[in-house]
């Protein structure tokens, strides 16, 4: 009953979207040759239809604005500044996407979604894309009907301690009291890690992030554990941020990246390659300041030429402008610049060099497939 109603709603929305489509879908028919093992060659003609354009992209273009599901309470990643503007690392990826589609980084509506409602918001088409420090996991990818884009930040659970405590690694923390948020995977990882290390600990379990950091700040706990990205943000809210350090050890894998509803691969391609463009731009040294000059100077590097739309039809294939990458870089800079702006020393100060979030050429995991 409920399910059939839902399908009807989906069908109706689909019809609505289809009505917005400006162009005919391109249909490619492919011949597939199946060779069976019994030495009998059977030729089967299977018509395979590729929908070469995205319903979602068409809907976004018709609307004239991108709707991006974001966080508004994690400093550095997604929060509201003093003027009530959405700012942060994740927010800049939303702006990059808007710049790619419309050439205008402000053509984006930010929709604040909580951790609990974010996937429902995607499933019900409330938002076009979710960029809200969301960890890529098996069950979210497979069960929830969502797809994950390239990882933009390799996060992991960390431990913040007082600088004068003398702790340099988790192994020093035998008998420590740890502040932790109730009912999270963080709580489970903490138990696992300390058990594995054979360490004894007391947990102070509180039900809000504010209470957790307040208790830590008051000295009730020796350590505060959460995702490293959040710790860096929480640290800025402590009475004296410089008195606290985040230990280097990582207790879990939390790859964060953009998420969209399963089923529109073409839309996924747009999101994926906008992120990849930002990474390649950093690799090639293309910055917000020099992108226009670089494009005008007729660069020699073939990949730069392809990236900036001087050669090839890459933007058009995605359904965007041929030189959309120039708009993107002009709007937000390359990956490294986004990182520096929000997570660098001027922002929440999460060290990048030597971590997983360094470029692959610097020993990190930030890597984009070739633009060809």
């Amino acid at each position, binding site marked *: 009953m*409920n399910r059939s109603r839902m399908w009807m709603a989906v069908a109706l929305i689909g019809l609505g979207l289809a009505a917005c489509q400006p162009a005919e879908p391109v249909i490619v028919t492919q011949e597939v040759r199946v060779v069976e093992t019994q030495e009998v060659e059977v030729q089967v003609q299977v018509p395979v239809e590729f929908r070469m354009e995205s319903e979602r992209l068409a809907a976004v273009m018709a609307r004239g604005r991108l709707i991006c599901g974001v966080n508004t309470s994690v400093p550095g990643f997604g929060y509201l500044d003093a003027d009530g503007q959405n700012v942060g690392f994740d927010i800049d990826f939303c702006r990059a996407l808007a710049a790619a589609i419309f050439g205008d980084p402000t053509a984006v509506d930010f929709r604040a979604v909580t951790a609990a409602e974010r996937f429902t918001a995607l499933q019900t088409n409330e938002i076009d894309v979710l960029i809200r420090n969301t960890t890529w996991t098996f069950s979210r990818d497979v069960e929830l009907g969502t797809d994950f884009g390239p990882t933009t930040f390799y996060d992991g659970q960390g431990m913040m301690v007082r600088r004068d405590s003398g702790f340099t690694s988790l192994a020093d923390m035998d*008998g420590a009291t740890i502040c932790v948020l*109730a*009912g999270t995977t963080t709580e*489970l990882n903490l138990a696992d890690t300390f058990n594995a290390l054979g360490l004894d600990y007391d947990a102070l*379990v509180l039900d809000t992030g504010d*209470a957790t950091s307040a208790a830590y700040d008051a000295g009730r706990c020796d350590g505060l554990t959460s995702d490293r990205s959040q710790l860096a943000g929480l640290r800025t809210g402590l009475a004296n941020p410089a008195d606290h350090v985040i230990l280097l050890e990582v207790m879990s894998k939390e790859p964060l990246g953009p998420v969209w509803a399963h089923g529109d691969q073409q839309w996924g391609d747009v999101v994926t390659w906008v992120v990849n463009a930002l990474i390649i731009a950093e690799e090639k040294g293309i910055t917000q300041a020099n992108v226009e000059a670089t494009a005008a100077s007729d660069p020699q590097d073939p990949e730069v030429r392809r990236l900036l739309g001087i050669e090839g039809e890459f933007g058009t294939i995605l359904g965007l402008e041929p030189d959309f990458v120039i708009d993107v870089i002009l709007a937000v800079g390359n990956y490294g610049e986004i990182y520096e702006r929000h997570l660098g020393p001027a922002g929440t100060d999460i060290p990048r060099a030597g971590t997983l979030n360094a470029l692959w050429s610097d020993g990190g995991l930030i890597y984009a497939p070739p633009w060809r």
Partner: protein
Amino acid sequence: MEGRLSRRLIRFFRDDRVLRIAGQSAFVLAAAVFVAWLVGNLNDALDARGLTLSFSFLQRTAGFAITQGPGMARTESFWRAYQVGVLNSLNVVLAGLVLTTLIGLLAGVALLSPNWLLRNTVRVYVEVMRNTPLLVQLFFIYFGVVLTLPSLQDRIELGPLILSQRGVWVPRPVPQPGFAVWAMLSAVAVVVAGLIYTRRQRRRRRTGEVTRPALWAGAVLIGVPLAAWLVLPHAPLTLENPTLEGLRMVGGLRLAPEYFALLVGLVLYTGAFIADIVRAGILAVPHGQREAARSLGLSETSVMRLVVLPQSMRVVIPPLINQYLNLAKNSSLAIGIGYLDLYAISQIIFNQSGQAVQVIALLMATYLTLSLLISMLMNWVNRRMATPGR
């Protein structure tokens, strides 16, 4: 014919009994349909998500550790976590009930004190506590008072008492070899003291002699254990002082800051309500009773203890039950200040297991049981206190 039938029908539907039965059946039917709709809705929603309403998940490994109260290891079950929650809740509720009764009684009597300073100080306490939310008070006590105590390294030592933001420690009594003998003698002394008290009391009632029951019973109660302590070759109990080892105190008895803050908060808040109930109860005793008692030559304390308080109990106990139930239920605010009571642990369980419906059902059943038990006990006390009918 038709006219007669309709007249009979009209008479039938105007019959009081018919209306009553029809009305009640309609109500029961409507209620049943509503409940069936709720249950059906729940089942549909559960089916859609592939969930079942089974409690077997309680046997699964919890995966999280609890380090408050009895505590549990990471590898124990959700059921064990629930038990720890119940024990932690009972711990704070039972201690709270006793302490809040004492505070409430003292404050209630003080509200009627002829001493201006005492009366008005207590009035301020009662009004402030009654008119601000408990959660705000708990935050204030926890973050504003308990957590501003010094760290373990800079702890305050008041004789054997150690105060710090990590908890309050007192020395722990440790039984020594002679302890069993001493404990047995002391137990005998308690029984004998009880016997002496009742017999002397009875003799005084019968004969009017001055028998001093409390004095004699007290002498036995204190004298025997003291003598045994001195006679035994080793002291039956020694005190173990807490010492700092690494990051934590080892030994001694510890009162966790979260437990302490919650207990103080609950006791002060509920005590303010009880104070006003006690004050009202005392005022409800006719003034003539007090005057009559005074004219018999009773001291002010005796007037209060023997005449006024026993009679005011009849007025006090019914609203007191409400306050006891409030204290038990308010203990679930523990989650705000990090004390792992039943509610806090239940929330962790349903976050980690995803079985929200069962956990909430179990939680409600547990609080209901606790409240009904308190209610039953207090109703029994109420019946005992009621003036026998004349």
